[in-house]
């Protein structure tokens, strides 16, 4: 049994060795999880497993038995609006080709859940595993800073 974006799935025996990334994309149609290298170095396939940042191309389904998984499709409110972190990515100009965006958002989300006021250096550290070839990361770091303030307005700066 695996929980993906709050839905529960029972994984048949013949799929136990399938990569989580491939399962998300091919079996569930959750194509927001991207494949850039398929060896765990680009971060495009990032998901959260029990709140931790993981490369879904480096996991097979039996590795995540009993785990709670969040992919990019699982973080927006059901009314179609955006999570504040997603909104910050939009507003800050943090998106160009968009291929790294889902993974970036999830890595940043995991950081912000732990650290409500990360420094820019801490943000960069948290995003180290996610490659972006378009933006130079600057506006992505801006977005995470902005999101921290929207998500946790009462934390001290």
């Amino acid at each position, binding site marked *: 049994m695996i929980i993906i974006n709050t839905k529960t799935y029972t994984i048949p025996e013949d799929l136990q060795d399938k990569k989580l990334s491939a399962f998300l*994309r091919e079996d569930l149609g*959750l*194509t*927001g*999880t*991207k*494949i*850039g*290298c*398929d*060896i765990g*170095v*680009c971060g*495009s396939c990032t998901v959260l497993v029990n709140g931790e940042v993981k490369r879904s191309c480096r996991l097979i389904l039996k590795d995540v038995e009993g785990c709670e998984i969040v*992919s*990019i*499709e699982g973080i*927006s409110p059901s009314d179609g609006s*955006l999570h504040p972190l*997603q909104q910050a*990515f*939009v*507003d*800050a*100009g*943090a*998106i*160009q*080709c*968009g*291929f*790294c*965006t*889902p993974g970036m*958002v999830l890595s940043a989300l995991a950081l912000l859940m732990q650290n409500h006021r990360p420094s*820019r250096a801490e*943000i*960069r*550290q948290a*995003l*180290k*595993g*996610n*490659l*972006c*070839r*378009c*933006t*130079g*990361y*600057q*506006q*992505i*770091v*801006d977005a995470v800073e*902005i999101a921290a303030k929207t998500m946790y307005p009462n934390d001290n700066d």
Partner: protein
Amino acid sequence: MEKAYRNDAYAKVTGKAKYADDYSMPYMLHAVPLHSPVASAYLKQIDCSEAQNMPGVIRVVTATDIPGKIKFGQIIPDYPTLVHKRIRSTGDVIALVVAESREQALAASARIKLELQQRPALYTAEEALLPDAELINPEHGSNICNYHRIRTGDIETGEQEADIVFDQEFNTSHVEHAYLEPEASLCYQRPDGVMEVIGSMQHPFSTRRFVASTLGWELKDVEVKTVPMGGGFGGKDDTAALVCARAALCAFLTGRPVKLTYSREMSMRESYKRHPYKMQYRMGVKCDGRITFVKVRMLADSGAYCSVTPWVTWRSTVQCCGCYEVPNVHCDVYGVYTNNIFTGAFRGFGSPQVNWAIEQLVEIAAEKLAIDEMEFRRINMVRQGSVTVTNQVLENHVVSLNEVMDNVLREIDYKAKRERCSFGDPNLDKWYGIGYAISYRGMSLGAEGVDFNSAIINVQPDGSVLLETGVHENGQGAESAMILIAAEELGLPLSRIRYRMPSTSNIPDGGTTVASRGTLMGGGATTNAARILKSIISEALEKHLQQKAVHFCEGNILDESGLVICTWNEAIRLCYSEQIYPYAFGVFQAPRVSWDEDTGHGNAYFTWVYGCQAVELEVDAKTGKVTLLNMVASHDVGKAINPAMVKGQIYGGMVMGAGYGLFEELALKDGAVTAENLHQYRVMRATDLPEMTAIIVENPDPCSPSKAKGIGEPTLEITAPAVANAIYRATGKRFTDQPIKLRKP
């Protein structure tokens, strides 16, 4: 902070955006390529019998199955979609295996048996130029793929006038685009016979030509549709189009939809790279700081195929002296065939190589003359009314080199900081350095090609607007820029304009979205279309309401005195009721450019942009580790349509350029790329970078209907020499080979 506008941001940030590999179709098959194991051989036989009988395999496709032309190319048709007889490169594809699943196709491709007769291979341009060298493409008649030159002034006079003459060689390496999304395509033949193509490619019209040529069909029978693309940087042209052509071939042969998705390994093995250059410069300077001559010979390694080498090397030719006035120039540039992986378009397009050289060369010259590098640049750089080395007078736009340079030097406090540089001081553990570089860049294609673009604005009966242009969304925000331009011209909120999903069957071929021409050319066409549309609406109002519309503003149409005549929606209703379509087709034809191949003279580009970038860094004296401390850029973009996205281009270009200077090098062994995946090819990560500052300069361009020029490539072309100049001031050592190798092995 000014909020960014992107029409595609919501889809991308929610993961809803569908890239080529995210699509699938019922009864879809999967194809995989089989690459050549060697760089040079005759292909004697392909034995597919075992592969053919593997589970799930539908068909093994080889060159003899191609109904159209086996070879195609944008300039010289020398690239085999599938190898027929002769293997020239380890990127060559010998066969395609089509199966029910990708895994089955991969398993079967390993069972194809090849009989090869290996041939000697040429891995350097110098070897390939030897008189007895074997011809790599015999039908071309020479291993010289192309040649450009400039003969300006008199080189002997330049030598005689010089007080100091010096020679310096510079070398650059193969570089990987490393777009995050590998190539992918999904093709199917529609019931009406049309081959419909989606793919991760940046040139739908170029892709259509590749597909049509392979199938032997007319252009009308192939429709390429655009989906979001995960990065291109010039790299999703030939190879990406070939992937589409192969998928289309398989779809045609099997009668089923076929997806061909490249793994990163396949992509790195086959896709073209940035040209490595060998550049031998000789420069003469006078004691008063004037450059008297530049003589240069460049060899660009084209690899086994031509791709766009003649165009890339043409830009290197035009910009061979950087942004400086040089009265006597003797320039020879050769694109050379080798058996290396082929090379082609890559952001910068022949300028990063020459700027790597020239922006170090001017500092070397300045030092020899004991003139500071700022002064030396100011003495020699182009200004309003200057004549370029190709005899073009820079008079039709604002020449803003001084402005961008002043911006950067002031912002980074260059004058004060250059006094603190370490120059390899043995008493220090950390060496500090600062450096900068400047450039001009000819905008758009120049005399490389025919340069025009179109836009369609189709207003719906409810007043909402469908917009499309011949420009492709490469991820840079092209569609958003077009929407912003249309919204401003028409006085409408952004929410009323939708960029229509582009298709090659719907709008005329607007050329490729390259050369930083998207905003300039597509924006020009959009502006012109919007103006035509306004005149259509104005005529209707004059005829039927006897009112003269002058302003389109905030959803209203106003007369000369600013009084509202009617709302936009009312005007559109009136048009439809009076049998008038509020529909406009706008074209922007680039002003004429000229080029004489013999002299290398002409108005190479119809307008130019100017940029300056500076870098501060620290070098660990023991380990050679470089830490970037600060990067500042200023670029003249004519007009910033979407300022946040302009800054995004600047940051992204600087980072790619800094990586080019510091560590990006794609090593080859026996013509093959040695890096298999991104773990063996380093690109910049968030922790490698300092905070950056981008200063936008806006001198509206009179040649551009929207007043905007371009920004994509200027941002990348000067960072590496700025890094090299900073490294020099940190270490006291000049690094003339890119990338800079400082770390002790």
